[in-house]
């Protein structure tokens, strides 16, 4: 039985407080902590970032609720700070990037398997194979530019091999838009999954847009530019799955429930005791925020939150290696192509996507150049016959 979000009230918003020293506490260890601790930190930073983004836009559209939104945002901002500051200083932007792609693969694969709606599950599997390829391209970049092994970050949980080639992921916007779920005929879990993935991809996009220009290597700069563009497509894809007929307050309520669900999932599986304490604290904070929004939706829209939310949270998101599922999906669906909102196995792209892709890749395909002939090996590609490698370059 999952958490009962109606009887568990959490901590009231006015008691959700921080100090600067708490916000910027000691980081996790890049070397010693489990890779899924980093996965959870990256995911929850994305979830908090999306919570802020959503409430800022909502606030522009609503005068009456500006104060409660500002009050929730203040706490949310500090929650995000406390989570994001768990990243250590010795984790380079490229190493963090590897972590972002591990999130995109492992969390998307977990959600695809628990997703009850087959169309949304298909969309998640589709996006998953693209992020899977990004991990391979960034691993080649890390090996060939920095001389480092991406598996130091991945800790052998995640495969490093080509997926759907990034060079063919570039599509016209019309082929990135999906059919939204029907808010009246959709399981709450479907809504929580969609919100989680939008948040995660949005933060990935923003992170690449921030750090891409910090790289010196011209090919690395282009690789980030290229993959950031796909992340924008993914935000478009996942965002379009959400029913636009949900009211603003309804979306806020669902977002808060999604935050509770994800923090609860983190708390259930975190082996680092100190960080587990943070996840548990934020389950209580989010429950407090959720109940605040429950009261608002009752008062403002006269609706019963029980009609919108599950009585108990679903089973926690599984933060574990999804290697076999990813491999099966890769074998079956790597050639899947969308035309408009529909997926076609072994399909060809639309003329609009082919024309757009051809133009973007005209001068160079950066992700192809960086991984030309690349095959990951434990300890980097230099491990295998270094003398032969040097004479051939």
């Amino acid at each position, binding site marked *: 039985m999952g958490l009962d979000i109606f009887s568990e009230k959490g901590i009231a918003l006015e008691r959700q407080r921080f100090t600067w020293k708490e916000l910027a506490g000691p980081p996790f260890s890049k070397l010693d902590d489990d890779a899924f601790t980093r996965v959870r930190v990256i995911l929850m930073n994305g979830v908090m970032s999306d919570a802020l983004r959503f409430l800022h836009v909502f606030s522009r559209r609503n005068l009456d609720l500006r104060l409660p939104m500002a009050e929730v945002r203040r706490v949310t901002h500090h929650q995000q700070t406390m989570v994001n500051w768990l990243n250590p200083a010795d984790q380079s932007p490229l190493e963090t990037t590897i972590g972002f792609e591990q999130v995109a693969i492992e969390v998307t694969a977990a959600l695809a398997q628990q997703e009850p709606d087959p169309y949304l599950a298909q969309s998640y599997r589709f996006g998953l194979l693209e992020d899977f390829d990004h991990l391979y391209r960034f691993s080649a970049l890390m090996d060939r530019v920095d001389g480092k092994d991406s598996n130091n970050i991945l800790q052998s949980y995640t495969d490093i091999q080509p997926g759907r080639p990034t060079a063919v992921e570039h599509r016209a916007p019309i082929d990135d838009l999906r059919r939204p779920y029907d808010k009246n005929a959709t399981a709450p879990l479907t809504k929580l999954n969609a919100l989680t993935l939008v948040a995660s991809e949005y933060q990935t996009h923003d992170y690449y847009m921030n750090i891409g220009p910090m790289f010196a290597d011209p090919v690395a700069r282009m690789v980030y530019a290229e993959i950031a563009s796909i992340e924008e497509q993914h935000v478009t894809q996942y965002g379009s799955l959400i029913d636009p007929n949900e009211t603003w307050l309804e979306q806020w309520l669902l977002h808060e429930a999604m935050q509770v669900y994800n923090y609860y999932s983190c708390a259930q599986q975190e082996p680092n005791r100190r960080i587990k304490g943070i996840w548990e604290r934020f389950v209580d904070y989010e429950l407090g925020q959720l109940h605040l929004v429950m009261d608002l939706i009752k008062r403002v829209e006269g609706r019963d939150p029980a009609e919108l939310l599950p009585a108990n949270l679903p089973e926690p998101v599984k933060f574990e290696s999804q290697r076999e599922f990813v491999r099966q999906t890769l074998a079956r669906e790597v050639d899947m192509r969308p035309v408009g909102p529909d997926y076609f196995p072994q399909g060809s792209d639309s003329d609009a996507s082919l024309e757009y892709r051809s133009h973007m890749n005209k001068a160079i395909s950066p992700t192809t150049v960086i991984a*030309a002939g690349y095959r990951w090996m434990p300890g980097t590609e230099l491990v295998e016959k270094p003398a032969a490698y040097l004479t051939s370059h």
Partner: protein
Amino acid sequence: MKKPTDLGSNRTGAQASPVDAKKTAEGASSSPLIDGGTAADLAAERLGWAQDAEPVGSMPPPLSVTGAIKSAVEMLKGNEPTVLLDKIGERLAFERTGVRLYEALLTKLAAADLHEGGPTQAEVLRIRDDELRHFSELKEAMESLGGDPTAMSPCADVTAVASSGVGKVLSDPRTTLSQCLEALLMVELVDNDSWAVLATLADGFGKKEMAERFRWALADEAQHLDMVRRWVNQEIIGQAGLAPTPPQGEALQPPASV
């Protein structure tokens, strides 16, 4: 207190999870190579960019009429006085940062569990003060040539990029004294060679007195290098539980004329 050399739960290597690592390796080796080519494709693309790229920036114009005249005179001789100004700007910035690095080392020292032959506070303070004096002397040297000591010259910029990791190591509360000393050893090695080049440059432009002062600084830096080398050696030998060894490396002597 936990030490980084203690056996712990480091999970980064393939041997930390042999079953999973084998799966990852087998998956990679059996996956199709969808893109042709080799790592040479990256080198070829980089080459094109390197041939076309503009530099990171340029030298600022001389501050004063005197400076402009001096530059003009040197130009007539076929020399490039801006090379000297650029390298003075580089060293000035490097020494200024060096003050902050040794200030950070003082904190590390206070928190450290010292081994025999490791640094003392007085020794670190002496190096910190030397770096500050060098910074001040380079500022005067730059001004005497009509240059702007507050500008960031191209070499100052690139050298700061090259050494930017040192400050991260020194300021990270998790790093040990010996890890910080090794980072400073990189700094001192570069600093020694750079002061030697600077003195040669000043000689080449006929700035004999300036060259002499630079050699003075080089002698200080040679002593810094000797000290940091010794500390690194002693700290690491001490950590390993071995007996202290004689100091490594020899300090250079100041020029005879000083």
